[in-house]
């Protein structure tokens, strides 16, 4: 902009100099011509005046000669003719001087006046045309009467001329002198004019030269600046371009853009076309709206910066080898203001892919470290024997999963059967891991459950759909090996420690009634409690307490868990009872117990109560699980079943309360809308019901909406020596 203004100024100056030069030359030529003409006429007049000076004397002599001739009666014609010629010449020259106007007026007037005084005496002489002589043989030649008159006139003229010739001559000399002076003045003026013209032209030429020199210097500087701009635009790593009011890219942009967008046709390209094939439609629409907003002055720049939707734009582009790659670009926009408001919008684009990936890597690494730490802390609270038991069971389950995966299948129905089996095994592993607070294992299995769910949704299944699951299973196995290794190390560490907590370990009895205000650290078994654990492999209390604490934290609930009689669970029922309790506790935490503020509004205690009681009955055993939560309404169960498309709306309408309550044990049922680690998949209660049925038992549920839900499991008497079922 500054360069353009300077250039305009320079052009105006050059035009001024050119005009001045033309004016000077014109003036010099015009006045020079006039002066030269004046000089020429002055010189001519001077010559005339000089010639005239001689004539008064000549006329006097011619008159003398004419008189002499007349006196001697000689031929006077020749003398008269010469006189006539002289008089005519003087008349003509005086007229010429008067006409030229160059002669000094008074001088010429005086000369003319003096000459006019000649006229009365000269006119009769020069106008004489008669015969001056009379010739007779006797008297010879004598003057005729005309001749005598003529003689008298000549004599008078001769006397007058002799008397006035010198004054007239002097006057004509003065006239000549005046003309010479005038001519000389004109010549001096002409010289001065020419000199001034040359000087002015010289000054203007110097000025023009100076400006030309300046211009060349400026042009050189501009060329250098242009060159430098080109270098900058070529080597800068950010993409720069200007957008005009039509949101089109200007003719100058930085080279980096060509790498970022794999194209070169930026000039005139609209911003929308630039992003069109790279981003989803919704993003494109937002981006275009945003750029449009930049042209309005409603929002100031800081606000616009804060709502920039292109701060981290994910684009998919061709990597040049036929494959697609994802890059992350950061767009920044700055308004370029002109005198009439926003003139352009400067856009800078940076490729922040490496930053984004690094940030993700750091986040993953942080998550991993946290998971490891959680796992370690979780493991420290887990009974080593329970942990070993879990790892052994899980290994068996995974072998089963592997067997399921290896089963040959061709038909879609067979694949779906495989998926169902896989899902149940995974869910079982997740339940155990959650109960032991092994979140790293539980979350991995949760991801696998997600993958199985995705597979279920596909219209057609093939063997290839199972490949990602196999890979994930390998990862899970590797992780379990890590857990086992860490468990071994922890065990060694605990053994090597001095017996700092023997009292805690030895004194910790099997808690018959553990009360754990949820949200606090699990108060279960002390970390060093190997000795205590040795005698109670089947005691689930600490595991349940630990799980209750985690569930409460995860779901922002508060409840106390009261456990009675679990130490009396016969070994054949231990596994089933454990599965039942884990599932019921999850259901209670997720569906049953209300959030503290909800409970307060319902005039309930903030902290809910979950009771577990196992006891021997005359006919066998009885497990009662009860929570004082929201209870279950048949309407909710029916609505959820319709949503899950387990039953039709008509069928749901026909269901009585009993049938509706039975939906709890239907495969795939859940009232939870979303899927979380603990609920929502509709797997669990159907497995529980089936396990109980396998043992010859029964499961029932009773509930009062807003007050409680109670599950009752009845099992037949068992042979405590038969541990094979566990």
């Amino acid at each position, binding site marked *: 902009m500054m360069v353009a203004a300077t250039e305009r100024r320079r052009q105006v100056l050059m035009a001024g100099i050119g005009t001045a030069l033309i004016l000077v030359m014109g003036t010099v030529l015009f006045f020079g011509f006039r002066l030269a003409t004046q000089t020429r006429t002055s010189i001519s007049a001077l010559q005339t005046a000089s010639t005239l000076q001689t004539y008064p004397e000549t006329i006097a002599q011619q008159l003398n000669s004419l008189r002499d001739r007349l006196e001697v009666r000689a031929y006077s014609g020749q003398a008269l003719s010469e006189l006539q010629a002289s008089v005519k010449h003087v008349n003509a020259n005086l007229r010429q001087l008067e006409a030229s106007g160059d002669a000094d007026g008074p001088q010429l007037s005086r000369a003319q006046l003096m000459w006019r005084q000649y006229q009365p005496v000269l006119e009769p002489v020069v106008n004489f045309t008669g015969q001056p002589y009379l010739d007779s043989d006797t008297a010879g030649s004598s003057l005729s009467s005309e001749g005598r008159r003529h003689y008298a006139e000549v004599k008078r003229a001769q006397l007058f001329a002799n008397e006035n010739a010198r004054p007239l001559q002097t006057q004509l000399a003065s006239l000549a002198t005046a003309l010479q002076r005038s001519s000389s003045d004109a010549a001096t003026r002409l010289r001065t004019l020419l000199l001034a013209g040359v000087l002015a032209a010289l000054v203007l030429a110097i000025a023009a030269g100076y400006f030309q020199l300046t211009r060349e210097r400026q042009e050189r500087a501009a060329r250098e600046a242009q060159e430098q701009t080109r270098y900058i635009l070529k080597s800068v790593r950010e993409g720069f371009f200007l957008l005009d009011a039509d949101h089109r890219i200007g003719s100058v942009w930085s080279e980096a853009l060509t790498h970022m967008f794999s194209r070169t046709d930026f000039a005139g390209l609209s911003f929308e076309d630039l992003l069109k094939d790279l981003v989803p439609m919704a993003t494109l629409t937002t981006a275009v*709206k945003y750029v*449009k907003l930049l042209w309005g002055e409603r929002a100031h720049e800081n606000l616009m910066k804060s709502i920039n*939707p292109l701060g981290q734009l994910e684009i998919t582009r061709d990597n040049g080898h036929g494959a697609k790659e994802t890059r992350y670009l950061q767009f920044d926009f700055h308004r370029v203001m002109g005198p009439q408001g926003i003139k352009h919008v400067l856009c800078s684009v940076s490729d922040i892919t490496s930053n984004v990936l690094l940030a993700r890597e750091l986040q993953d690494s942080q998550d991993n470290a946290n998971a490891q730490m959680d796992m370690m802390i979780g493991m420290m609270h887990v009974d080593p024997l329970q942990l070993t038991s879990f790892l052994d069971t899980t290994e068996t389950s995974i072998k089963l999963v592997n067997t399921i995966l290896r089963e040959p299948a061709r038909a879609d129905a067979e694949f779906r059967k495989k998926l169902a089996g896989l899902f149940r095994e995974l869910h079982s592993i997740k339940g155990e891991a959650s109960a032991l607070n092994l979140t790293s294992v539980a979350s991995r299995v949760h991801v696998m459950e997600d993958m199985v769910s995705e597979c279920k949704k596909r219209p057609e299944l093939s063997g290839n759909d199972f490949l990602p699951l196999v890979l994930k299973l390998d990862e899970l196995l590797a992780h379990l090996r890590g857990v086992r290794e860490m468990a071994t190390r922890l065990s060694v560490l605990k053994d090597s420690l001095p017996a700092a907590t023997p009292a805690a370990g030895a004194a910790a009895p099997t808690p018959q009634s553990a009360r754990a205000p949820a949200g606090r650290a699990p108060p279960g078994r002390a970390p060093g409690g190997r000795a205590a654990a040795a005698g109670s492999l089947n005691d689930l209390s600490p595991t349940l307490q630990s799980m209750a604490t985690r569930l409460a934290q995860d779901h922002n609930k508060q409840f106390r868990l009261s456990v009675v009689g679990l130490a009396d669970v016969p070994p054949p029922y231990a596994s089933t009872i454990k599965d039942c309790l884990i599932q019921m506790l999850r259901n209670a935490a997720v569906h049953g117990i209300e959030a503290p503020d909800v409970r307060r509004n319902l005039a309930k205690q903030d902290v809910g109560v979950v009771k577990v009681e196992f006891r021997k009955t005359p006919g066998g055993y009885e497990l009662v699980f009860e929570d004082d939560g929201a209870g279950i309404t048949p309407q909710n169960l029916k609505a959820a079943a319709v949503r899950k498309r387990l039953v039709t709306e008509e069928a749901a309408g026909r269901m009585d309360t009993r049938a509706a309550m039975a939906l709890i044990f239907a495969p795939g049922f859940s009232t939870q809308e979303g899927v979380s680690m603990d609920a929502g998949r509709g797997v669990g209660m159907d497995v529980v019901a089936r396990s109980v049925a396998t043992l010859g038992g029964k499961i029932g549920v009773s509930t009062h909406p807003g007050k409680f839900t109670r599950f009752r499991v009845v099992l037949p008497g068992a042979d405590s020596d038969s541990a094979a079922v566990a």
Partner: protein
Amino acid sequence: MSTNPKPNAKKSFKLMIVDDSNIMRRRIERSQQFEELQVVGTAGNGLEALELFKKTDPDVVTMDLTMPQMDGIECIGRLVTLKPAVRILVISALADKATAVEAMEKGANGFLNKPFTDRQLNEAIAELLC
């Protein structure tokens, strides 16, 4: 919807607060520290806001986006149609940039994310008034 029956004539700008949360409405009213702002009314949804707007003709509006009956984005469009010179500060928990751009396109003049501090609120209002 509530209106202030005695608007102070000394104040040079009338403020209307639109938010479906009563707590948030009170919070904004209490936290704004501008003498030249006179709260002329509060509304709990877009429809109430429109009605109140026609009655009180405010100069400045704080607008929530997620509200029942009529959301903030639609309400902004209607308010700007009624009075193009009105200045609207969107105060929303919807933090995505697309929503902000949408609101600005409809005619909002500022955007503030929930939760916010008193200082952030007053800075946002100050930018709106200048």
